[in-house]
């Protein structure tokens, strides 16, 4: 743990300075505008203690939706990304052509347009509701990025490992499973974690089709209350809390894997 603190100390300090300046600027700005701060209303949106007992507030519920949505999309991205990477690396001509076509399509499509495609086109055809369309869209979009991470990780394992695996009679699938993939994990972990953070951030886009996650919740609250400064500060802080937690978790994982091999 102390090492974790050491390696992160400088970025954290820089980050705090930047945040401080940002807050100062907005505070002075708000003052100049004559903004009426009402921070006392925010905790109610996190949780409430009423006569009926404890209740989660809208922002917390939005956070849960953001997390489930991101997690489900990430799982889809992992599965689809692995398949695309394996196809791309296979000696099946059709397979690798398909993989490349998929990659080029997704990479050259704005995420927003892809989301509209999923919701307005594929949605009615396959009976996807807005939530399902969002999960699939994010999953597919990130599958392209994830597949490149898999590919790089797999290619980072030396060809000698493949030859040794083949020479003891392992099939291609077995060579992947027992020899190559376990060794690529340490190459893939850091960028994969980056992708997890990325997915949480890009999940905010589904607010355009009114899936009620963190960002949509924020917008809805503001529509009712005009507390735009307080709410956006809170929403931003919640996103930061998620992504920073993820980063720290990953640093920890990296350390563990580094020790093992």
């Amino acid at each position, binding site marked *: 743990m102390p090492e974790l603190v050491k390696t992160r100390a400088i970025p954290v300090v820089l980050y705090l300075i930047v945040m401080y300046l940002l807050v100062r600027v907005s505070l002075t700005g708000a003052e100049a505008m004559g903004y009426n701060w009402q921070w006392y209303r925010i905790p109610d949106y996190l949780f409430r203690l009423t006569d009926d007992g404890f209740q989660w507030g809208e922002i917390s519920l939005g956070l849960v939706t953001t997390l489930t949505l991101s997690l489900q999309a990430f799982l889809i991205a992992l599965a689809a990304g692995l398949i695309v990477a394996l196809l791309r690396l296979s000696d099946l001509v059709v397979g690798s052509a398909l993989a490349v076509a998929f990659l080029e399509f997704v990479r050259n499509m704005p995420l927003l347009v892809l989301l509209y495609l999923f919701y307005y086109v594929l949605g009615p055809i396959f009976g996807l509701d807005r939530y399902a369309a969002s999960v699939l869209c994010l999953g597919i979009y990130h599958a392209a990025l994830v597949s490149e991470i898999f590919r790089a990780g797999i290619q980072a394992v*030396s060809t*000698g*490992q493949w*030859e*040794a*695996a*083949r*020479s*003891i*009679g*392992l*099939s291609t699938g*077995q060579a992947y499973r*027992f*020899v190559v993939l*376990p*060794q690529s994990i340490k190459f893939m972990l850091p960028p994969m974690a980056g992708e997890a953070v990325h997915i949480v951030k890009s999940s905010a886009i589904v607010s355009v089709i009114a899936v009620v996650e963190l960002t949509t919740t924020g917008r809805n609250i503001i529509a009712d209350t005009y507390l735009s400064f307080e709410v956006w500060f809170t929403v931003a802080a919640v996103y930061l809390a998620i992504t920073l937690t993820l980063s720290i978790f990953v640093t920890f994982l990296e350390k563990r894997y580094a020790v*093992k*091999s």
Partner: protein
Amino acid sequence: MAGRRPIIEIRNVDKYFGEFQALNDVSLTIHAGERVVICGPSGSGKSTLLRCINRLEEPSAGRLTVDGIELTGAKDTLRRVRTEVGMVFQQFNLFPHLTVLENLTLGPMRVRRISRSEATERARKYLDRVHIPEQAEKYPSELSGGQQQRVAIARSLCMEPRIMLFDEPTSALDPEMINEVLDVMVELAGSGMTMVCVTHEMGFARKVADTMVFMDEGEIVESSPPDAFFSRPSSKRCRQFLDRILEH
């Protein structure tokens, strides 16, 4: 080796990498139990020939039969042949994420489909055979080069192959570790294993080889018993090569 059964038959094999011809009309018959040592200058196609025998490379033309199985592209014959042919690499190529024991049991359990306990027993037997029974629980990175190469030999032996291929098994080793690996190989030769070794260790070659093969520019230039090979090589290229590597 007269009267013995041919176990590897190489007939008119060519191998191209793009335009470049790495093997040129190579023919060689190796009998069961025979020990063949292949030498030749760098780039002469020695590795390529070995790799064709267990199909890590696919010949561009010609025929190759191993233990009666004709090597075609078909997946099942390929795997059958690979389980009969062990290969030891210059760079060891141990699986770094697995312990020594796991390196040795992976093939037997996943390919031969024997139980873990049987595979472990077998692994310990071959670790004994290569004189490192005490290293079973370590990771490859914790071993010396010579120990790693002996683990690699044991890993191949655990598949109980009929043929062992060695591609310069001692060239990546510090001089003081070369003998521990060669000793294991000499013992293996004594057990009657069919062996094809690419090596420039001529002391080892004299001790174990039944046949010496000299390759140059993708061709087999000379193939003869060691006595004749070392005392009166018939080609000039071979004589020059031997003079060069034997002079010190």
